Every structure is written in C-alpha cells, then in structure tokens.
C-alpha cells in the first residue's frame, strides 16, 4: 500500500484557477456570497476547528478530553471572534493531502463533515499548489529538528559521528530518519533505533537504551517533559538534511477567504499578547515563532 497523493497533475491549471479564485473571492467579499464565510460562522456562534487526535503537543486526547496547543489556540481564536470553538480531533490519513480533503473541503467518506479551520497544516508551496480547494496560511509555529542528548554518553557538544558508537533513536521514515540513515553513506544504520510512536522513543531514551533522540523539537520537548527528563536539546550541524525546519499554519476552504483574514487578525493578537507562548509552555514546549517573511 502507499500514500494516496501520487500524481501531481494539473499544476499549471491549478495555478491559474487559484489566481481566478482570488479575484472571485475579492469580488464576492463585497457581496458576501461565500459558502460558510465569516458572517455565517459568527452567526452560527461556533467555529469548527479540526486537528489530529494523536499529535502531541499540538493535539491529543487526554482521558477523553481534547488537549494540546492547537486545542487551546482554537479556543482562543474563537474567543477573539466572539464565538465558541467546537474542537474535532481526527486521525491522520496517509499524507497531509488526504487530511486536507477530509477536513477542509470534501469531508471523510465515512461522515463527520469538514471544519471551518484545520490546524497543524504545514505551510509549503508545493502542498498548497496541489490542493487548490484549500487556502493555506496563518503560520503560527516553526517546527525545528533537534537532538536530545544524554551528555554523559555523547559529550556536551556532539557531532553525528558520535553515533558511530552510540545509539540514537528516531521516528521511522521522518526527515530525521532519512538524514541518519544516509549520513556518510549509511555508517550509522546499525546504531539507529527506530520507533513508530514517539512515546516508545522517549521510553528508550529515559532508560538510556539510546544516547540521543532525534526529531521535531516540540515533540521531543513534550515527551521529555512528560517523562520528567531534563536534558539539553542541541541542533548540531545537519549538512545534507532535506528539511530542518518548516512552518505550521492553517487551512480553510478556498471560498471562505474572509474567515482566513479574521483568523489571521485573531492569531496576531494571541501571539502579541504572549498568550501563545504561555499555551506552549503549558505543554513543556518552547514557543518558536515563524520567522518574519524575508
């Protein structure tokens, strides 16, 4: 089996369509004839926010309750719009493209419908170009690749060469994994310990079965905080890694652009007041703001 994205057909056509859509959206802003635009959301009193069901620290289920940075941010955005948030946590598809289809514009085949806003969406030009039914934006967090180390095993400022003799844990098939397996033509392969669930990696790290744990900084920070481990996170030279940071933002329906603008203003306020940083800290996560546009 394989992920269901595959063919990136019609790129050029989509680009033209996007351009046309922006114009159409601008025109209809004046007339207010959008499907579930801001007015309708506000009138309904509820902003429907969708994120992942198992994606700590951003969203996860804790004894039946939805928790995480996305959950708190969703509530804060709704509050700024003067309404309530309905938070829906959904499982992930094989690729983000599947989630955009299920959560933003078409809805899952098995029912449940779309949301007004999906969170934890990577902001990436190629991704948005191949999903023209959604608008991507409102970046609120920068994900970074980092390494948690046990300095007594790796030394305080290790390079990746140390894992020729020490073990390092990583989540399967992530960019970190890819980097570790290809490092110097595969010299580390026998010392890379793979896991599928982040909790499993944290457990190995806590037990010092591995000297280091590589992955997304926010995820590492929360896992370590949960396990009560206080160790340094380092960002050593990663020459050759294909992606060492990316932005998390939001996606909404192509025909609900005014909602996107209102949410942008809300996020700006939540960030400026320091609330977003406080939310992150609740989960043991250092707030990493998206860098200003170049």
């Amino acid at each position, binding site marked *: 089996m*394989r992920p269901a994205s595959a063919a990136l057909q019609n790129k050029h056509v989509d680009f033209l369509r996007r351009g046309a859509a922006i114009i159409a959206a601008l025109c209809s802003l004046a007339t207010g004839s959008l499907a579930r635009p801001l007015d309708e959301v506000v009138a309904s009193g509820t902003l429907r926010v969708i994120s*992942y069901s198992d994606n700590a620290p951003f969203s996860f289920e804790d004894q039946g309750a939805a928790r995480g940075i996305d959950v708190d941010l969703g509530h804060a955005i709704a509050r700024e719009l003067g309404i309530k948030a309905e938070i829906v946590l959904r499982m992930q598809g094989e690729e*983000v493209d599947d*989630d955009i289809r299920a959560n933003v514009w078409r809805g899952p085949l*098995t029912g449940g419908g779309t949301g007004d806003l999906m969170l934890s969406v990577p902001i990436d030009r190629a991704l948005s170009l191949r999903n023209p039914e959604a608008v991507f934006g409102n970046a609120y967090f920068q994900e970074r690749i980092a390494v948690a180390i046990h300095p007594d095993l790796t030394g305080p400022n290790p390079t990746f060469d140390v894992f020729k003799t020490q073990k390092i844990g990583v989540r399967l098939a992530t960019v970190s994994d*890819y980097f570790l397996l*290809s490092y110097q033509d595969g010299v580390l*392969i026998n010392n890379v310990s793979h896991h599928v669930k982040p909790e499993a990696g944290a457990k190995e790290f806590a037990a010092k079965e591995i000297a280091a744990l590589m992955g997304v900084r926010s995820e590492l920070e929360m896992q370590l905080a949960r396990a009560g481990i206080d160790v340094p996170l380092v960002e050593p030279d990663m020459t050759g890694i294909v992606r060492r940071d*990316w932005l998390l933002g939001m996606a909404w329906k192509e025909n609900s652009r005014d909602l996107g603008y209102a949410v942008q203003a809300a996020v700006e306020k939540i960030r400026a007041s320091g609330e977003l940083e406080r939310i992150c800290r609740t989960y043991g996560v250092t707030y990493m703001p998206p860098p200003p546009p170049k």
Partner: protein
Amino acid sequence: MTSWKLLATASACALSLGLASPSMADVSIEDVVNDAKSANDVLTSGLGGQGQRYSPLDAVNKDNVSGLAPAWAMSLGGEKMRGQQAQPLVKDGVMYITGSYSRAWAIDVKTGRELWQYDHRLPEGILPCCDVINRGGALIGDKFIFGTLDAKLVALSAKTGKVVWTKEIDDYKAGYSYTAAPLIVPTKAHGPLLVTGVSGGEFGVIGRVEARKVDNGELVWSRPTIEGHMGTLNGKESTMTGKKNETWPGDLWKTGGGATWLGGTYDDETKLVFFGAGNPAPWNSHMRPGDNKWSCSRIAIDPETGEIKWGFQTTPNDGWDFDGVNEVVSFDLDGTKAVATADRNGFFYVLNRENGKFIRGFPFVEKITWAKGLDENGKPIYVPENRPGNPAKSADGKKGENVFAVPSFLGGKNQQPMAYSPKTKLFYVPANEWGMDIHNEPVTYKQGAAYLGAGFTIKTIFDDHIGALKAVDPATGKIVFQVNNKAPLWGGVLTTGGGLVFYGTPEGELKAIDDTTGKELWSFNTGSGIVAPPVTWEQDGEQMISVLSGWGGAVPLWGGEVAKTVSNLNQGGMVWTFKLPKKVAGN
C-alpha cells in the same frame, strides 16, 4: 445432527411468518473444504479454498450463453454508492454479500428480495486508504463472518443477521482497517479456524496472519510476516519469523511493513494456508540494503501451529511498491502439486506448493522495465538504472532520480482475482498494462510533519487499452490469447465447465468469452462499473450467475492519464443475477 434441528426450526419459523423463506442448514467444515466440488452452493471466496474460481457447471455454455438474461437485481441502496468489491456466497437459496461502508445482506436468490441487512456502525472520520470497500465474508456453522473498516471481525447469525460476536483485529485509531474476505480453514488441534490478515495501520507496522476460533473469535495463533518478530500460539510466544537481521540492516526489521491486506487461500491436499505480504518500509530501498524478507512475498503457513512452511519472495529489496499480496492459486501441473500467482511486478510465478520451489516464471504483461527476467531460482535480474534513485545521491539532494518503471505500483495485476480452468489448463488473468514515473521524494508531509515518501505518476503505455484479460498457460509461459479493455480491469474472473470465462469491466459490462479463443459471446451493461468477481451455482436445476456492480475502489483515486479512461463512470450499487430464460418470446 444440529443441522437437521436447525432446518426444522427454520421451516417452522417460516411457516409461522407465512413467508416462503428458504430452509437453512449449518455450513460444516466439510462443506467448506469440498466447496469446489459442490455446484449448488458457493461457500468460499474463490469458489473453493484453492481459489481456482472454476465451476464445473455447463448448463450455460458457449452455445447458449448469448441468451443469458437478468433474473433479478437488488440495489444496495441509500446514498452509499461507493465501490462494490465483494464476491457473493450462496447457500440453501440464500445469497450473502457485503457492500461498501461495512454492510452485509442476505438475499433470497429466487426473488432477489432482501432477507436481512446489517449496517455496521462506523466511527466518524476514519480514513481508509482506498475507498470504503469490502471483499466479502465467510460462511461457517450458522454464521456469516466479515471484517469492517474499523478493523473488527463481525460474526452474524446467517439466519437473522444479528450479531453473534465481534472481535477487534487492531485499533482503528492507529489506522487499521479490514476489507478482505476471511478464510475458513480446518485444523485437527483447534477445529475450524477463521484466518485473516491485517490492513492499514501506521506506516511501518508489521503485517501478520492470524487464526481465530470461529465460535467466539478467540485468537489461536499469529504469524508476523517480517523476520525477527515472534509469532504466538495459544496465547504464548511460539517461534520467530525467519532470522533477525538476516536480510534487514540495523533495526529496520522492527518497522518493516509487509501488510497482509488481501485474503489468503487454503489447499487441503497439502494442508497449507497461503498469504501474501505487502511492501517494506521505508519507501527508499537504498535505506534498507538486503532482501527485506518476507516483504513482497508469498508465505505458506501450517494452520495447526502458525509456522511458516515456506516463503517465496517475488520482489526482494522492493523499490517500486510492488506489494506481494496477490492471491496464490493451487492447481495440478501435470501431476505436480503447484501454485501460481500473478504478481504486481508483472511476472507470473509457478511454484511447487509442497516446498515453495520455483518451477517457472515469465512476464504476463507486455513490458517490464525494472528487471531483465528471472534467474533459475525465480529471483529478478534487476535493471539497476530502473531502480528509483537515492535522493541523497542526486545533484540537488532533494529528489532522487526519476525513473519510468513498468508495471506501475498498481501492478500488472492488483487485488482482482484470476481464475484457473482444469479443463483448458489455463489461467485467466485480469491484467493491466501501465507504467509510472517514480522518484524517491524526501519531503512529503504526514500529520503536520515532514516525511520522506515516493512520488508517483501513473502513465498509460498503449493508446487503446490499459486492461487486458490474458489466458496464461502455466506449463509453457505462453499467453494463449488476450482481450483488451480501455479502462483498467479491477474485478475478478470466473471460469466454468461450459467453456466460458466471465469477468466485469469498469465500463460496466459483465462479459462471457470463449475459454479457448477469447471471443466475446455475451455481455450485459450493469449500469455502473464492475470491480468484483462473478460467481455461479445451480439453483433448482438452473445455472445462475451473479456479480456486484458499483464503481469505486482505488482506481478512481489515481489521477493522470488513467483518470481519463474512468472519469465518466457513474457510481452504483447493485447485485445482478442472470440465468437462461425458460421460455423466450416468439418460440
């Protein structure tokens, strides 16, 4: 004699209700094992455990098939018109089918009237990878058992459609689902067992074959497909699959994939269960040098213990996503107990089914670019330039070198089952001719995070067809004839003693062709695409033929040039049943 008692009760019930409901006897394990020999019922997926999909019935034959006409049709109803991939089962005048969204029905085969319907309550928001299909159920005792999109096995009373037991295969929240028809297998130690694989699951989860008691769903044994993992028997660890690290580097065996998402077959002569295993993880084959057993393989399992008797790997160190799940069909090859399988990778394999020894292998599609051929042990002779490149070695470090590989990852043959006729000694293979641009792509996104993946674009090879029904001679490797089809073939095949081969097309036609020449003798437009295998049985002296019609499955999800051949197809959801009319007007 439980069956007699039940029969009596059933009749009494029917009388009291004043309905002409058929009398239903229990399905014994002997009935299941002998299914291929009994023409008046269809008790197993594959019309017999061996999976030949052959019926000796010849009342409908080359001379009269042109008069075949609908007896009845039944709608699967509602707004739930998605792909229908189930093979019907028939027993005592009742047909049992499953449909999209994990639904099941019992139907009176004389009238086409529904006897009961079971709607499984699916959790909201689950995301099965490839449509919401189901491939059918199994009959045993007084139960009809099938698997659901939220990864549960549900045993229903065959009489009432009421739930007898349910069992979770695995957690649907971790992406597991179940779509294949379960297999019923006799054992001395545990009685009849229900044998299934697993489908879905997070990337890297280990495929496994599991056997359960049919009475309550209790797990008896489990056999992981990837070497280094321990199996279980009667609640205890049994033996390790293969040898840890023999063909996997580092700890990649721990997350090696090898999903068993298509059903298995059973051969009562050798008492072996045959299952296939899917592709290995991660995508990029350069990361896992070695054969990566038993990903992309067929394995033969002893149902008494769950031990692997033999394995045969079709695509070692897979780099093209050639899942090895396609069905293994047992047949007699001039006195040799053989099996055959038509792989995603474009090669047709004939193996000794007692020991898995390679007898011969040959292409069943016109073009194969990733391998020059097979060596004397059946291992592919790779074309190194046709392996998708390692992104780490590319100039910009971003995207591995793109290659055009044939077949595409959707395979020379996909899930649609082939048929074998002991009469013509030919296999009838629903094949597809297509290729793909493939590259290892370091950045895709999964659950908000950057992952490495593979980029695919499916391409056609011929202007006029993708699908091709091929008559394959397993003794010589010759393609005796082929019937081309514009759209990709996605339904299965049935062949009969009447010298006919039945199969459906996405364009909606159920066709009957001559089993020696491929000449089309009959076709009927069912109104929506056919992606399910037809069946036949004898009912009160008449030969009946049934197939589900309802376009869907994985093909509509794939874009590019393939989309053009299927974009005008309409959704549907019907069971069609045909027979020869007793009287024809004007006679």
